[in-house]
């Protein structure tokens, strides 16, 4: 690790670090634009000039391009370098428009800061400014090319890092332009990163256009709730409205990048129908009254019929603390251990993932550094988009990527796709030595240096993950073969840890149906949407004597609950999530709960009267509500200390701080012995597989109005050969008959998907919302509309 001196201050930088890294570590401001820690240096902007006094290359140099050396002497304040930087700053500003007041970047603009830092203040150039015509880049990103300083960061972000293909640099000389060849929405699922990475206001957030300035935002480090990866994010809001989400900077997980679902799918928090008042049988009441009534009714029920008749349902959406308190509530009332996912197969997958020894779990960072990645039953762009980015970084560094999946996978990198059906995948994993493909892959995994197996919990289920774990053990040669399970929700893994000790063979829906259960408490979950058979669940719920729901989303179950208590969202309270790699990460509250001013003032002036609601009537967090029921007076820190006593594998929980890199759990115990018999369909039968759509399948994007433009049209996908055998043509309207109903859908040909299967993406607000991803494929029949008639 080289030790060098900059402006008479000595600093040690990591191997391979540059002089600019060293200066940043010391807090010395050297203006720069094209350099970014995640993208590296290209030396394009010429802004970071410093003078090297002692070293192998002496004189005026670009700090981002000069590797730090031992005993180097660097000065940032030599007259020549200062004049050079001021001159470059002035050049870069010759065409920059005078529009900071109407630019959303103003206040957090690197160009503003660095221009002043470079020493340029007063414009001397009197010539005309260059102008551009802007492009319409869709609903997420707004472009204003006049502001561009040609640092090339956007192309390096969008094309090089994120693998987008519809954006690039055009033109020559003074006409250099960054955009698409034609107007149109950006196709990449990571287009929002342009907003973070542009050092000035060329690319700004269209969903948050003109709404706020950075200095007015309330911000706090948080964790993205959209998938199981637990990317660090920095949400910001104002006037009780969550307004934007930016990427956080956890180098071990998402490394400054997030997907568009995370960035633009946060307005569910401000949903106009979000339930904010406690209700008893649909009537609005004060929340202490509802809480007291709930306690009274629970006690009466337990006294009369025993705790066996009470069931509790936690959720991968709820914080780890809330899920743990639910377990304590079950103990208090003598009820069976809670469920942590309404979907039994997903819950089993989470339990299985949580039982993988923590040393065998890969992190996203390890995935980026891997040399052979085998994706088994996982569609990264739909289930965990930032995983696709990590795969691309591995591929750029020379890794080979092999995918076994029935879906027509798309990835932002080169990969080998074997479209196997879900059943043949599971069958292959159960006897890999008989499968030629898996056997050859096993040999390759053995010989590679840092292999990672990525397993999708949705397609494989717990049984598949268990088989995958055995498969990985069989190909451990001299090194570990790491596993990266992809789960359903931000706290699925945490639910898996808590659920591991419970009796896993219980079946919630059957208990509900045969009347063994009289009361159900759902914490931040809607079983009528999330269970594998939503229709059946809805019917079963209607037979309950007492259905108590704690939630913040406007689901149907909230409307039909006997006792409903509103909860705070993750942007309004603190807590912990455990992501799919077993990393505990804390999040902090961003806003106080309340109706956004834009709603109370209906877009105009906020109302002028004083508060009409009594203080303290705002929603409480699920943790607070459960603590009230348990008469537990610990604060969050005390609660975490208590958790550590009970679950020693979470021993670092009390050292977590929001915005840090999180801490991995230690081994929680032995690998789960649980196994479950699944009846896998035979090849040759036509089956339909419901899958997660890229937008809309998770509950948060379902209620994000800004994402609706990215929702797909409902359709059923088929392999062209399969279609030809049945005489169907592309785009034809067909009738799909399944056990959950029949659907009139257009047929879409997908050449890269598995044969013998139909695929339907689960989309909210369409007839396809009755399907829930995460199950096995269902038997079906398909007819053309004419035949059906």
């Amino acid at each position, binding site marked *: 690790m080289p030790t060098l001196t900059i402006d008479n201050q000595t600093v040690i930088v990591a191997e391979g670090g540059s002089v600019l890294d060293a200066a940043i570590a010391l807090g010395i401001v050297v203006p720069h634009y094209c350099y970014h820690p995640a993208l590296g240096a290209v030396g394009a902007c010429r802004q970071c000039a410093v003078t090297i006094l002692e070293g192998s290359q002496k004189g005026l140099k670009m700090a981002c391009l000069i590797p730090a050396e031992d005993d180097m002497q660097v000065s940032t304040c030599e007259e020549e370098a200062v004049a050079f930087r001021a001159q470059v700053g002035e050049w870069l500003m010759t065409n920059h*428009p*005078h*529009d*900071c*007041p*109407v630019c959303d970047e*103003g*206040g957090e603009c690197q160009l503003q800061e660095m221009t002043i830092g470079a020493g340029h203040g007063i414009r001397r150039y009197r010539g*005309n*400014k*260059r*102008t*551009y*015509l802007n492009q319409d880049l869709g609903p997420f990103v707004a472009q*204003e090319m*006049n502001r561009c300083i040609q640092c090339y960061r956007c192309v390096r972000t969008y094309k090089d890092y994120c693998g987008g293909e519809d954006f690039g640099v*055009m*033109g*020559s*000389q*003074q*006409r*250099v*332009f960054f955009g698409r060849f034609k107007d149109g929405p950006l196709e990449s699922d990571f287009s929002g990163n342009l907003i973070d990475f542009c050092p000035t206001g060329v690319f700004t957030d269209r969903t948050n*256009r*003109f*709404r*706020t*300035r950075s*200095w*007015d935002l309330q911000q706090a480090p948080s964790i993205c709730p959209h998938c199981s990866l637990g990317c660090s994010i920095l949400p910001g809001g104002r*006037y009780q409205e969550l307004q934007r989400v930016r990427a956080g900077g956890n180098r071990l997980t998402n490394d400054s990048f997030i997907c568009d679902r995370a960035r633009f799918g946060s307005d569910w928090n401000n949903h106009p129908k979000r339930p904010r008042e406690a209700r008893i049988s649909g009537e609005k009441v004060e929340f202490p009254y509802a809480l007291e009534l709930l306690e009274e009714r629970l006690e009466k029920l337990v006294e009369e019929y025993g705790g066996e008749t009470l069931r509790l349902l936690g959720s991968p959406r709820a914080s780890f603390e809330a899920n743990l308190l639910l377990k304590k509530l079950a103990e208090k009332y003598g009820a069976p251990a809670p469920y942590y996912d309404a979907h039994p197969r997903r819950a089993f997958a989470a339990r299985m993932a949580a039982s993988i020894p923590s040393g065998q779990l890969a992190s996203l960072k390890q995935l980026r550094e891997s040399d052979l990645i085998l994706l088994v039953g996982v569609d990264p762009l739909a289930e965990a988009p930032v995983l696709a980015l990590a795969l691309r970084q591995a591929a750029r560094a020379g890794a080979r990527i092999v995918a076994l999946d029935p879906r027509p996978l798309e990835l932002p990198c080169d990969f080998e796709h074997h479209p196997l059906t879900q059943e043949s995948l599971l069958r292959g994993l159960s006897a890999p030595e008989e499968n030629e493909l898996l056997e050859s892959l096993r040999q390759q995994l053995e010989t590679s240096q840092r292999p990672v197996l990525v397993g999708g919990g949705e397609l494989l289920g717990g049984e598949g993950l268990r088989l995958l774990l055995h498969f990985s053990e069989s190909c451990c040669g001299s090194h570990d073969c790491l596993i990266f399970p992809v789960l359903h929700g931000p706290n699925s893994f945490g639910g898996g840890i808590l659920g591991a000790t419970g009796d896993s063979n219980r079946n919630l829906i059957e208990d509900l149906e045969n009347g063994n259960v009289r009361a159900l408490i759902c914490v931040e979950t809607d079983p009528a949407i999330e269970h594998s058979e939503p229709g059946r669940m809805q019917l079963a719920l209607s037979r309950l004597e007492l259905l108590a729901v704690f939630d913040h989303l406007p689901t149907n179950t909230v409307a039909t609950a006997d006792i409903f208590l509103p909860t705070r969202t993750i942007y309004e309270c603190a807590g912990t999530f455990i992501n799919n790699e077993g990393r505990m990460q804390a999040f902090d509250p961003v806003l106080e709960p309340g109706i956004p*001013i*834009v709603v109370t*003032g209906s*877009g*105009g*002036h*906020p109302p*002028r009267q004083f508060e009409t609601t009594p203080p303290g009537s705002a929603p409480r967090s699920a943790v607070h509500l459960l603590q009230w029921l348990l008469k537990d007076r610990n604060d969050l820190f005390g609660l975490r200390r208590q958790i550590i006593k009970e679950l020693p594998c979470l021993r670092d929980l009390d050292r977590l701080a929001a915005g840090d890199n999180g801490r991995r759990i230690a081994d929680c115990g032995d690998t789960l012995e649980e196994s479950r018999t699944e009846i896998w369909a035979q090849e040759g039968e036509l089956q339909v597989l419901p899958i997660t759509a890229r937008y809309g399948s998770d509950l948060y994007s379902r209620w994000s109005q800004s994402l609706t433009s990215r929702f797909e049209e409902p359709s059923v996908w088929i392999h062209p050969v399969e279609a030809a055998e049945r005489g169907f043509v592309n785009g034809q309207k067909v009738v799909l008959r399944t056990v959950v109903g029949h659907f009139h859908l257009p047929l879409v040909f997908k050449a890269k998907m598995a044969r013998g299967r139909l695929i339907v993406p689960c989309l909210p607000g369409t007839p396809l919302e009755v399907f829930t991803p995460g199950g096995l494929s269902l038997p079906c029949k398909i007819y053309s509309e004419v035949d059906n008639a």
Partner: protein
Amino acid sequence: MSIWRDIKGTIEPFWITLRNMFRPVVTVEYPEVRTELAPRYRGRLILTRDPDGQERCVACYLCSAACPVDCISMQATEAEDGRRYAAWFRINFSRCIFCGLCTEACPTMAIQVTGFFEMANRNPLETVWEKEELLVDHCGQEPDYNFYHHAGIGVAAARGENPGEDKPVDVKDLMP
């Protein structure tokens, strides 16, 4: 001694009154008579319009950031033509200290001080002024300045048609 002091104390005020009765009057009979204010007197704030009659305020939030007593709040929004303006703009004059820092921060000359100061009333809520009350239909100072002619975005004129701008470049042109 004290009796002489008391007598003096009784007579002296009469003497002062008598003496001042013949001096010129300095008191102004407000409100019948108005005094002349200093030319840079800082009274009530207004939101002015640009020479085209459009609102000058672009709701950039700089005045609210500069305000030392946080009496300005607003919400920016976008018009159909891309013009940024304030959806609502509120000044709480019961909090305002008339320091004029907002007018110094304003990049578009929209918020300006005037010589008007008669805003006292008995209802505190009436000292909170909304945009409709703040907006005037003249340019105030700097009558020729139109921010959108210098901003380089195509709102007041098409892109490239404002003073000091070249026509938009043809990005597909490869000529040297």
